[in-house]
């Protein structure tokens, strides 16, 4: 059962083919790692999936059903996708709790005027803060958090979306050991719940530990795929990393 299938995806930035004829199938309910040297198109791929960047050609098939050639960012919620960002995009001048509340409230203009589930939202948000260990920072402005705390907040925000698919773009970058444990725990929990996680990471140990399946990208297309241990031993993969 493939939850996402990508066919001949192309993204061209003024002559630079960030994603070049990429085709792959992402199985449902697994943690899928996406690795590759810098500039191989991993982030662009995730940006394409989440509608941040326009698809030039090719298509994305969701759940063997919806075939899409254009994805708008606000549509991905309906596709049950959510994501975090490599560069951490929080709502800086809003409080931590507001950053979470804003993804819980009504999406319609009229609905958000007369929000009826206020208490419920607040409870959900506070529970999440406890889960990631940020309750103490509840009323702090997001921009005042430490780097690691910001990454955690981003993940908390994504978790509250309660979608089926999670796109994490380098969630472990720059984190200390304790936080790495927290985030790994979260990903493992997601897997237990049967969710699908697409994980971009450079840390090979984490990839080995967490992912069920790995795709290796290089220069915009798929270089190799398979179980983490076998893929990481492949000559072509090692060359891609070293030879660049």
């Amino acid at each position, binding site marked *: 059962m493939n939850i996402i299938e990508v066919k001949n995806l192309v993204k061209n930035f003024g002559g630079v083919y960030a994603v070049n004829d990429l085709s792959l199938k992402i199985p449902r309910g697994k943690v899928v790692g996406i690795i590759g040297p810098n500039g191989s198109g991993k982030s662009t791929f995730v940006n394409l999936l989440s509608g941040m960047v326009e698809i030039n050609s090719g298509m994305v098939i969701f759940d063997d059903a919806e075939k899409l050639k254009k994805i708008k960012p606000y549509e991905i919620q309906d596709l049950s996708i959510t994501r975090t960002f490599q560069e951490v995009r929080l709502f800086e001048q*809003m409080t931590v709790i507001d950053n979470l509340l804003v993804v819980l*409230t009504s999406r319609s203009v009229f609905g*958000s005027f007369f929000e009826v589930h206020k208490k419920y939202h607040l409870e959900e948000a506070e529970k999440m803060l406890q889960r990631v260990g940020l309750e103490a920072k509840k009323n702090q402005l997001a921009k005042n958090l430490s780097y690691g705390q910001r990454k955690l907040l981003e993940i908390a925000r994504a978790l509250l979306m309660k979608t089926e698919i999670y796109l994490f773009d380098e969630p472990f970058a720059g984190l200390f050991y304790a936080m790495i444990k927290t985030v790994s725990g979260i990903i493992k929990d997601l897997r237990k719940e049967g969710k699908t996680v697409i994980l971009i990471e450079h840390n090979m140990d984490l990839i080995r530990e967490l992912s069920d399946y790995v795709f290796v990208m290089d220069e915009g297309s798929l270089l190799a795929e398979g179980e983490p241990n076998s893929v990481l031993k492949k000559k072509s993969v090692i060359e891609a990393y070293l030879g660049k």
Partner: protein
Amino acid sequence: MFSIYAILGVSLNLVVGYTGLVSVTQAAFYGIGAYATALIAKTAGFGFFSSMLIGAIVAGLIGLLIGLVLSKFRDDYYVIVTVGFNIIAYGIFMNWHSLTRGPLGIVAVPRPKIDLFGLHLDFNNNLLFLALVLVFLALIYFLARFIAKSSFGRVLKAIREDEKAIQVFGYNAFYFKLAIFVISAGMAAVAGSFFASYLRFTSPNTFVLMESILILSMIILGGLANLKGSLLGAFILVLLPELMRFVGFPNEIAAEMRQIVYGVILVLLMIFRPSGIMGEYKL
């Protein structure tokens, strides 16, 4: 006058401070409200309140149109286009003689009258008029506060912070931005209605670009994203000329001096305190 400016300030803060859209069109809506009220009250013979309502609706509709066009732009271009709209509106006020009597303006705009439940109030009395305006100011202030504190307000702030990011979480920012712009336009029109009634006439010269800039300065000074700040800003705006007269500046240059002070304040604010006195948000 303070109350009128306060209403204007609050309406603009919703758009600029909360949603992060720097708009220089407010005077246009202010003017639409004023003209609409004046025209309707005179020609159609409706009472003040009905005219005001119609004026607000007209402004809202035009705001919808303008908001639609504006949604295609971001940042710098957005500002330029809002400037453009202000100038277009001024052009219409000035040149559509058949509707607005051009530079002559519309005179003899009536004051409101209430004839309800045996209560007979004629607002030709200035004090009574002031009370009425204050009532509306309170209404609008609390409406704005309700909006700001609601989930809608929170979404607006998120749009301001990172519009693309909030879209990923399922929000179609376009509708939200449009909605607040229309609301803001309606509020400004209410201010315009009172203005027309207060002075008993309207002329295009009040609704120039500089006026929009003044309103913008007022809310930046008072504090972006802080409604009380807008009240403060309005207070200072109205007080300043009086202060300067007190200090002894000759009357003829009072208006220009006020503008100079505003210009300088704006620059200083940008350099030292972009969020304003009570503000919560830096541009």
